[in-house]
């Protein structure tokens, strides 16, 4: 199995706080990998470093053989890493379909001239983006809502739309930050099936942050546990469930 993403000693400090400390991650291609930990453990911060939003204070991120740290988010997106956000960041005034289309934007060779003069390339690109976006809305079960403004969607659908938009970038790796937050039991079951489908059918590697243990344990092959920025455990769901350090971190924190 080849390694898709590897971090080495990844560290970030905010003033006196070391939010992530010596984080090492090896993500195999085609894996469904869980990143868990109590609140404030540094999970979202890891995502921010992986996607070029934060510059690590120390350590490296390699994806597909390229050095990622030092790249900006646009370059990282081009490399094939996409993500969703814990606090949903949709383009509220755009329609559901248009939101998904923005994900396909980066692969267009379109410029201002094409847009203004409606060249054949413009129409071709619009159609291409629309097709990709529509296909992914269908994949996520949102095709009925394509024409609505994103802000009109109920919460659970907003989370799904963020996933559709991230998928439209045609990534190799998708990082999902608490995609089940705020969903009810039925929606969560549907979501875990969808996450599996992303990996199995679209062949995209999934890195998942999630607080819902049932969901994480149910679908992830390997799980890494963070606490106060440090890795305290790494293993299969079974190993993690029985790890005394993990139990301590979760129970001790309450």
């Amino acid at each position, binding site marked *: 199995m080849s390694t898709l993403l590897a971090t080495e000693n990844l560290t970030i400090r905010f003033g006196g706080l070391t939010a992530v400390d010596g984080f090492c991650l090896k993500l195999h291609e085609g894996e469904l990998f869980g990143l868990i930990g109590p609140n404030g453990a540094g999970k979202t911060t890891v995502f921010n470093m992986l996607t070029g939003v934060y510059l690590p204070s120390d350590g490296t991120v390699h994806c597909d053989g390229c050095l990622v740290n030092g790249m*900006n988010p646009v370059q990282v997106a081009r490399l094939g890493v996409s993500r969703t956000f814990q606090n949903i*960041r949709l383009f509220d*005034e755009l329609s559901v379909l248009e939101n998904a289309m923005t994900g396909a934007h980066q692969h267009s060779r379109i410029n201002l001239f094409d847009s203004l*003069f409606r060249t054949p390339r413009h129409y071709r690109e619009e159609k291409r*983006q629309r097709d990709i976006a529509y296909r992914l809305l269908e994949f996520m079960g949102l095709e009925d809502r394509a024409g609505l403004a994103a802000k009109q969607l109920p919460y659970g659908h907003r989370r799904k739309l963020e996933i559709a938009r991230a998928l439209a970038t045609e990534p190799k790796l998708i990082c999902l930050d608490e995609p089940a937050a705020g969903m009810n039991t039925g929606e969560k079951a549907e979501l875990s099936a969808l996450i599996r489908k992303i990996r199995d059918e679209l062949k995209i590697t999934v890195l998942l942050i999630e607080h819902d243990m049932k969901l994480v344990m149910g679908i992830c092959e390997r799980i890494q546990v963070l606490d106060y920025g440090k890795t305290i455990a790494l293993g299969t769901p079974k190993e993690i469930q029985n790890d005394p350090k993990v139990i301590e971190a979760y129970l001790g924190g309450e």
Partner: protein
Amino acid sequence: MGRMISILVVALAVVFGVNWFLDSFIDTYVVRVVNLCGISIILAVSLNVINGLCGQFSLGHAGFMAIGAYVSAYFTTTLRYFDEAQAKYVSVEPLLGGQWGFVPALIAGGLAAAVAGAVVGIPTLRLKGDYLAIATLGFGEIVTIMITNFEKIGGANGLPGLPAYSSTFWIYAFVVVVVMFSWYLQRSTFGRALIAIRENELAAEVMGIPASRMKVMAFIYGAFFAGIAGGLLGHLLQTISPATFNFMKSIEVVVMLVLGGLGSMTGAIVGAIVLTALPEALRDVESGIGLPGVRMVVYSLVLILLMIFRPQGVFGQKELSLKLLGRLIPGRRAKDSGGEE
């Protein structure tokens, strides 16, 4: 593209007809107001791309107008200035004389403004919100100060003697162009990217949209048409001075946008017409009831009331369209049961 050309040809024919009609039957004062409305539309629609679509609060539009006005005037006007060395007045003949030189001169003005847009945009568009507003305001002031100190183009006294080339036809030809382009822009990959940046810049970048580059492009686009509008205004007023393009002019355009609804092109058009024609209409009311000055009071009152009762502007971000009118008819709501189980 074929459809675009047909629309353009038809629209220009209509503009030509309207120009002929106005010139033949309507009194010159009304025609002048119509022309000023056209220039305001170009300004508001182009600023809408920067402020409305892309969400970058720019107060530099008057600066770009000034550049466009002076550069186009440079090509069309006989310049007279006092030459120290020869100790006499020297006049320089226009490079692009006559009606047919007008459009190239306007475009040269637009391009010069666009270059200025790039020069200003690249460093300042990293700034956000108020800081960007202040930086662009500063740019506008720098432009007027530079003109004031440049004696060859009239300095503070301004530059007189611009030929009266800005006919209704030329003004509205450019209105057609800017409206068409901006409409196309708005409904394209490019426009969606600008809106995405406005809605959530971080998410846009993570989706691979190069926010800084897109913002600079929006700025250049807006500056180009502001430059054109400046050239048209110059050749309508026939005299330009730094005072014509002071920061109040920028504010005026922003107010048009806010009135119509930031982000709505049709809103920008309506805002431009209302705010250009309303003061003129109120001028008649003023002299009618014999209360000078009441005009500005009414004008301000309208704006204040609007901002209290409809802060998103008349149109919000919606476009005026048949669909919008259709939605006002009950019983046509889209089926939407929400996301509950």
